[in-house]
Structure formats: structure tokens, C-alpha cells
């Protein structure tokens, strides 16, 4: 084998395919044997059925004895986690995307759970053979892992739908909210809003389709009105909307994910067109960030013009920053370095432009993982007037623990999933 890393990594992809092919063959052979047994005659069918009844009863008895109420089914060899898969955008064939996702999941799980088995069951993916009480860790490793870098001020929207950069233009009196959003590090604060308000603002934006969009097609959300029975059931405070379903890539998926006791007529559907994204504000702790449906979560609306995506990063691994805090460091591909340089140069140039009269206003870029802002680093335009050449790679630190930094590094190492997975 050549010592070129490219050829080595491409070879690993073929090895994965070969392993999948062997597993499929084995499965087919097993199914085939069962079919042949049936063809041996009526007697064989009767014996087979009797055996099946005995095995079935035993399985039900065992499951009844070992299953924890409300928790995952526990088998003798460990827990079993089932994920329902949906396409990332309508019209994408689900079958090949599920197969690709299974390959990536196997790689992600291989180091933490060497005995894990990942298989397909229709439009679901089943993970077996992981230790009991590892469900949360398995779900964390089944995150989509879509990483994006945005020019923060050029993309984040003020409540009136204009960008912060346009409100900070040179020579204009700085808009107070824009200034605070620019310098606020993406944490909940001025300019951040509830999920409903963010989605409502996003839904009023025109479609902006471009090659830099990270999401194809619209995203659908369904909310219940404040003080409705549904919101009261969810324990949402008075005067607040609550999320019933979404974000989903199609109306059909949105309705399918609706809780069984809620009728469609109880909800308000909001559609965010392609070219705009709703991202959760930076949290002080990555692993304890509030879930999207939590009423304490805050959001920002951005134009979806990503400057750089996770496809351009190489060799991500968990490390620590200069202060000893856990972070994730990675290199960049040649294309990624060019994009990173361009991004930081644009940010630095704008920072120099808006600063003046003794006031220094460094501008920022944002790093988002799976629709959640991780960190908003600033670019010191005096130190880097022409941006940063990404040859030394980059690191992101966003309130990680050692474990969550390792998880994020693993997610990024094997690339994003090709489908959305929801644990059942």
C-alpha cells in the first residue's frame, strides 16, 4: 500500500464497503436458508411454527422481566437503541443515505463501544450490543455533526431583518442593539430571542438560494399558541408559544412528528425559507445547553451564507487551550485554508472600517455545530489586518468538558450523517 494518506483513507472507505457487502451476503444466506426449510414440506412448517411460538413466548417473558419502565429494552448483551431516520431534504433517496449513515455510525461507535452492532430495519437504524446505561452516550454519537463557520456580523439579523454589519457601517451612528449583538459573543442577550420569535423573523425572510447555503429547501416548524392546552401540557409559562414539531424538511415529516394527542388544527406552521437559519445562542456549557424546546433557550437568526464547512477540516482531536480548558483542534484542507483566510480577512477589514475615534470594535466569525452556536471568536484587526492564514489549523473552545470535547472530535472525524436520526 502506498504511504500516501489520501490513498490509505480511500482504501479504508473500500474496506468499510467490503465489510458491509460481506454482512449483507451473510444476512441473505441466512434468510435463504429459512426459505429453503419452509420448502421442505408441511411437516417442517409445523415444526418451525411450533418452535417459533415457544421462542416467541420465551422472548416476551424475558423482555417483560428485564425491561425497565420507560427505558430502553435491555438484552442480555447490552442495551439497544433505535433511531428513526428521515431525509435531510425532500426528494433525497432515503435508502443510500441510511446505508452511508450506518457506515459513519459504526466508525463513530467503534472506539467507545467496540462490540456495538449497527443495522438497518426499514427506515430505522438499530444499535445493539452497547453497555446498559450507555443510551445517552450512543445518542450523543448519533448527532448530525454539521459544522459551519459564518461571518457573524455579516449574517446575523437584527429584529428588523437587517444585518448587524449593515447597521455598523462606517460613518453611521452605531445602532445600539447592533453594537451589543456584535460585541456580545453570541450568548443570550440583546438581539437574541425565543425560538418562536426567531422562527417568525426567519420565516419573513426571502429565499436566498446560493452555493453557500448549508441547508437545502425550507424548514418547517409547528408551534402551539400561548396558554393553549398543548402548551400547558408541556409546562410552558403563560404568554409563551411552545414547539409542537420540527424543524423538519417537509410538511409531511412535520405532521408525522406531531405528538399523538395534538391535532394539526391546534398548531401554527411557520416555514423558514432556504437561505436563513435559526441557531441557538452560545451556552456556557456545551453538554448542558438547553434543548431547543426549552423555554429558557435563546436563538439568533442568520443568513445561511456559510464561509466554511466541516467538510474542510482534517484530523480533529480533543486537546486543551492555553488556559488548560478542553477544546477541539483540527487542521484545514487547502480549500478550507483559503476559505478561512478569506473569512478572517473580511472580518478584520470590517473591524478596521467601523473602528475610529479611539474606539476599537473587533468583529467576529461564528462556529455552529448542529444549529447551535459554539463560539464567536473575534479577529483583532490590528494584529491580523489581512486575516489569519489557516495553515496552523484552528481550535474551538465552547464550554466543553473533556468528555464532550472528545465526543465532538469523534463526530467531526468521520463527517456528518446523511440523514436526521431521532432516538425512539
Amino acid at each position, binding site marked *: *500500500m502506498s504511504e*500516501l494518506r489520501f490513498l490509505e483513507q*480511500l482504501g479504508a472507505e473500500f474496506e468499510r464497503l467490503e465489510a458491509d457487502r460481506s454482512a449483507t451476503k451473510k444476512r441473505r444466506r441466512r434468510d435463504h436458508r429459512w426459505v429453503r426449510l419452509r420448502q421442505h414440506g408441511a411437516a417442517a412448517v409445523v415444526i418451525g411454527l411450533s418452535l417459533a411460538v415457544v421462542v416467541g413466548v420465551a422472548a416476551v417473558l424475558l423482555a417483560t422481566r428485564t425491561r425497565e419502565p420507560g427505558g430502553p429494552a435491555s438484552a442480555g448483551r447490552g442495551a439497544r437503541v433505535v433511531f428513526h431516520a428521515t431525509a435531510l431534504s425532500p426528494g433525497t433517496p432515503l435508502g443510500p443515505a441510511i446505508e452511508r449513515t450506518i457506515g459513519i455510525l459504526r466508525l463513530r461507535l467503534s472506539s467507545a463501544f467496540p462490540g456495538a452492532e449497527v443495522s438497518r430495519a426499514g427506515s430505522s437504524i438499530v444499535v445493539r450490543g452497547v453497555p446498559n446505561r450507555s443510551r445517552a452516550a450512543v445518542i450523543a454519537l448519533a448527532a448530525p455533526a454539521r459544522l459551519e463557520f459564518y461571518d457573524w456580523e455579516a449574517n446575523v439579523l437584527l429584529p428588523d431583518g437587517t444585518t448587524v454589519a449593515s447597521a455598523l457601517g462606517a460613518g453611521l451612528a452605531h445602532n445600539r442593539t447592533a453594537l451589543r449583538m456584535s460585541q456580545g459573543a453570541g450568548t443570550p442577550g440583546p438581539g437574541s430571542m425565543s425560538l418562536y420569535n426567531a422562527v417568525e423573523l426567519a420565516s419573513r425572510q426571502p429565499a436566498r438560494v446560493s452555493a453557500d447555503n448549508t441547508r437545502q429547501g425550507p424548514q418547517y416548524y409547528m408551534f402551539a399558541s400561548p396558554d393553549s392546552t398543548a402548551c400547558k401540557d408541556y409546562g410552558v409559562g403563560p404568554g409563551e408559544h411552545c414547539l409542537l414539531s420540527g424543524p423538519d424538511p417537509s410538511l409531511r415529516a412535520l405532521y408525522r412528528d406531531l405528538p399523538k394527542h395534538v391535532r394539526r388544527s391546534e398548531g401554527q406552521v411557520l416555514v423558514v425559507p432556504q437561505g436563513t437559519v435559526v441557531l441557538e445562542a452560545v451556552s456556557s456549557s456545551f453538554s448542558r445547553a438547553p434543548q431547543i424546546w426549552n423555554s429558557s433557550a435563546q436563538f439568533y437568526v442568520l443568513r445561511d451564507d456559510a464561509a466554511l464547512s466541516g467538510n474542510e477540516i482534517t484530523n480533529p482531536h480533543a486537546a486543551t487551550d492555553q488556559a488548560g480548558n478542553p477544546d477541539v483542534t483540527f487542521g484545514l*484542507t487547502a480549500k478550507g485554508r*483559503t476559505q478561512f483566510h478569506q473569512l478572517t480577512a473580511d472580518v478584520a477589514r470590517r473591524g478596521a472600517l467601523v473602528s475610529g475615534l479611539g474606539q476599537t470594535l473587533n468583529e467576529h466569525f461564528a462556529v455552529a455545530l448542529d444549529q447551535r452556536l459554539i463560539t464567536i471568536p473575534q479577529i483583532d484587526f490590528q494584529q491580523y489586518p489581512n486575516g489569519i492564514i489557516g495553515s496552523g489549523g484552528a481550535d474551538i473552545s465552547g464550554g466543553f468538558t473533556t468528555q464532550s470535547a472528545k465526543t465532538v472530535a469523534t463526530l467531526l472525524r468521520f463527517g456528518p450523517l446523511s440523514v436526521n436520526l431521532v432516538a425512539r
Partner: protein
Amino acid sequence: MDAGEDFASMYAREGESVLVFLARRTLDVGVAAELTAETFAQAFGSSPRLRGRSEVEVRAWLFTVARRQVSRYLRRARVERRAVERLGIRVPPVHDDEVTAIEERAGLAQLRTTLGGELAQLSAEQREALQLRVIEERPYEEVARVLGVSEQAARARVSRGLRALARALEPYRARGELSR
């Protein structure tokens, strides 16, 4: 493939030579890497049919596929990724240090010097596109920006220029100076 030889052994034996072959034909390591992935993805799909064939036959088959990929790339100005996408292969990136290593193995520096002379035979439009992409090795986004055209148009100019160059270089190939 000989009976008993699996795809992995064949890939280990032929991977580098196919990559170098494609780098010399396209003068672009990034494109060559993608074409290599597509070539082996097609081979993977056909591996049951290749079983039992000799090494020489398999190599001939592989290079025929690779040559077809190059001609499609030059004709359409884009890399075909049909088999790669069907199989769900994630094509790994080529790192800078590897680009240098592959260029050395393919002798691209010498090839580029020869090409410098031949560039004069091309139209100004194609010459400028090739100068930026092949000689100066700038990314397509930058080529497009300098030429003031879309990235797709820049790719088309480069591939048309390469096609014209391929015709101009036929005499060298015939003398065996550029072939591998």
C-alpha cells in the same frame, strides 16, 4: 483479479499508479484524486466480474476506466462521481504535503515546464485560465475571480485549454516523453 485475490490487494497494488497516471493527465492533483476515487468505485462495483482475471488484465481494465474518466472530465469540465455517490464513498481530502509528494511522483514540475512552451499555442482566454490554474495552481474560486467569470465558466476554460494542450502534446506522448 486472480482467484482468491480480494479488492483490497488489487487496490494496494494499483492505487498509486492510477493516481499518478491521472495526475499526469489532468495536471491537477485534486481532480486526479477525485477521478481515482471514481475509478476504483467503478472497479469495486465490477469486482465480482473481475475475479479470475490476471493482474495484467485487471490493470488494463482499470486504466481503460481511468482514461475514460479523464476524457469525460475534459469534455464536461466536471468530475463524474456516479459510482462514488452510489456507494456512498466519502472522498478524503488531499493534504498539502501530499500534493507535493504526488506531484513529485508524477513529475508534474517537469511536465509544467514543457507545458509552459506549449501554452503559447493556445488562445489568450485558455492560456490565461491554464496559467492561473495549472502553472500557478490557484484554486478555481480565485481563477474565476481573476478572470471575472463564474467558477463553472473558469472550470470550462481550463478543461478546454487542457484538451487543446492534450492535442498539442500528442507528439511528445508518441515519443514516450510524457507517458507512464
